[in-house]
């Protein structure tokens, strides 16, 4: 007997289901359709994987722009190491893989009617939806810091024009000037990202403006990979970076854009360049559709990514509460791929298998100095996606230059492979 391929297996399941022996899968009523909302790592990975493992499914990817600029590696752009074009990807590869790419703004996921509604009025029907809208910046969280203020004091926490704005402000900073960062409490997108940014800004300033200072006003007392970052800062940028933990500032009360000030309960920090990374919440379409149940982030069934508030709607990436996994591009891309397997199984009327999920966050302390934190995640008997104790963790402290150089190389290897697999034009392996 020859081995069944996926297409013939599908026909078998559909015919058996038609005889009443299985719960009717979506295919029994015709071609199944999955609508994916969000063209970042999570959504694009889900769409690409769906088309790869189940080519017979119609997959529509709703994107709100013609291209996606990644937050990973955007700190290298701010430091002038690479151009923005190197971290910007179009959707031609997804289209070539058979994904219908629909440019539009999704305004509502209607689980009852099983449609995704776009701002232009179109309602796209789905059998299952995958929603990965990423984050929105909370411009109501800090008095004085709204969208208009972000044009003067960039957040640069969604990559693109904001990245360029901060890069250019940094390059034009006066000699001996002060670069102030305001960093939120957890949870937020990319936990080590602010500290990588401080590192690469310090790298840039060491070469161009060596008497300049960096002050990090933090909304928490400790941070991701802290021992590794501070070891690198002491070694590469001695005296340049000051980290002010929450205990020493008691929280940001206000931003004063006209004076470039970050006002905390204890002290006011004035900068020549001020980078405000505000608190965040799940992308607007998910909140508007009730997927966060009135909160800021979307709870899900952590084994299937399905929303408890919207049957048939799966939520993942930064917008969702995915157990112990961090809000990272790596996590979102893995979740997108794993969710695609789950959705295909459910559409075929088969039980969804589980696997192990991994995450790695590489950070650059300098362009040739990489560090990492890794995690391994399994669903426990209570259905919670838990970090495995004894696995994962960070790079060692006290390692030599060879180790740091190799992790910088691995970071670039991860980035090029992952973006090529999700957005690339070539065949996936």
């Amino acid at each position: 007997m020859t081995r069944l391929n996926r297409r013939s297996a599908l026909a078998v399941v559909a015919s058996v289901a038609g005889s009443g022996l299985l719960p009717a899968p979506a295919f029994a009523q015709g071609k199944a359709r999955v609508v994916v909302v969000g063209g970042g790592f999570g959504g694009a990975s889900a769409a690409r994987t769906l088309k790869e493992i189940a080519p017979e499914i119609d997959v529509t990817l709703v994107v709100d722009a013609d291209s996606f600029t990644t937050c990973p590696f955007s700190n290298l752009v701010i430091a002038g190491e690479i151009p923005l074009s190197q971290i910007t990807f179009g959707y031609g590869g997804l289209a070539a893989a058979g994904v219908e790419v629909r440019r539009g703004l999704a305004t509502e996921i209607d689980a009852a009617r099983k449609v995704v509604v776009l701002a232009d009025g179109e309602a796209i029907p789905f059998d299952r939806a995958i929603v990965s809208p990423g984050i929105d910046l909370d411009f109501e969280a800090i008095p004085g810091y709204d969208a208009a203020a972000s044009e003067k004091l960039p957040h640069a926490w969604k990559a693109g024009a904001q990245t360029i704005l901060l890069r250019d402000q940094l390059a034009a900073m006066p000699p001996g000037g002060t670069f102030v960062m305001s960093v939120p409490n957890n949870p937020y997108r990319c936990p080590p990202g602010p500290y990588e940014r401080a590192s690469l800004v310090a790298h840039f300033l060491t070469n161009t403006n060596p008497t300049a200072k960096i002050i990090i006003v933090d909304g928490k007392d400790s941070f991701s990979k802290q021992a590794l970052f501070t070891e690198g800062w002491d070694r590469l940028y001695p005296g340049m970076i000051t980290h002010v933990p929450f205990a020493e500032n008691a929280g940001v009360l206000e931003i004063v854009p006209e004076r470039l000030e970050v006002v905390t309960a204890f002290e006011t920090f004035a900068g020549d360049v001020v980078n405000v990374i505000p608190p965040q919440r799940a992308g607007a379409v998910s909140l508007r559709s009730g997927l966060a149940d009135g909160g800021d982030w979307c709870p899900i069934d952590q084994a299937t990514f399905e929303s408890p508030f919207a049957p048939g709607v799966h939520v993942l990436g930064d917008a969702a509460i995915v157990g112990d996994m961090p809000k990272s591009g790596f996590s979102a891309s893995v979740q997108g791929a794993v969710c695609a397997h789950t959705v295909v199984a459910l559409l075929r009327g088969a039980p969804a298998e589980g696997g192990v999920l991994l995450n790695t966050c590489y950070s650059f302390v300098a362009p040739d100095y990489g560090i990492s934190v890794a995690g391994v995640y399994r669903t426990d008997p209570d259905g919670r996606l838990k970090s495995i104790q004894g696995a994962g963790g960070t790079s060692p402290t006290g390692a030599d230059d060879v180790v740091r150089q190799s992790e910088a190389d691995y970071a670039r290897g991860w980035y090029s492979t992952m973006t090529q697999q999700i957005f690339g034009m070539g065949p996936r392996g």
Partner: protein
Amino acid sequence: MFKLMAMCAVLLTAGSVSAQSTPAEITFESCSACHGAAGSEIPAIAGQDYERLIDVLTAYAADADQATIMHRFAVAFSVSEIEGLARYISDLEGMPQ
């Protein structure tokens, strides 16, 4: 009638094997984020020899050398999970170089 039922049972079994992904296939989605393509410092692994994959993963699990993240991952996997992953990866077609 019995014959029809038996045939359905066979089809059901055969269908269910391929209609859902295996745990190894799902786990490999995490591996392929780094190992899915050739051309970087990180080796592409699709189509590598089954025994060699088991040897390498087992060595990573045992060796606390932290020069790469692989020990931090491999230590979380059981012997049967390593075998399942190695079988799945070795059955893949090799990546274009």
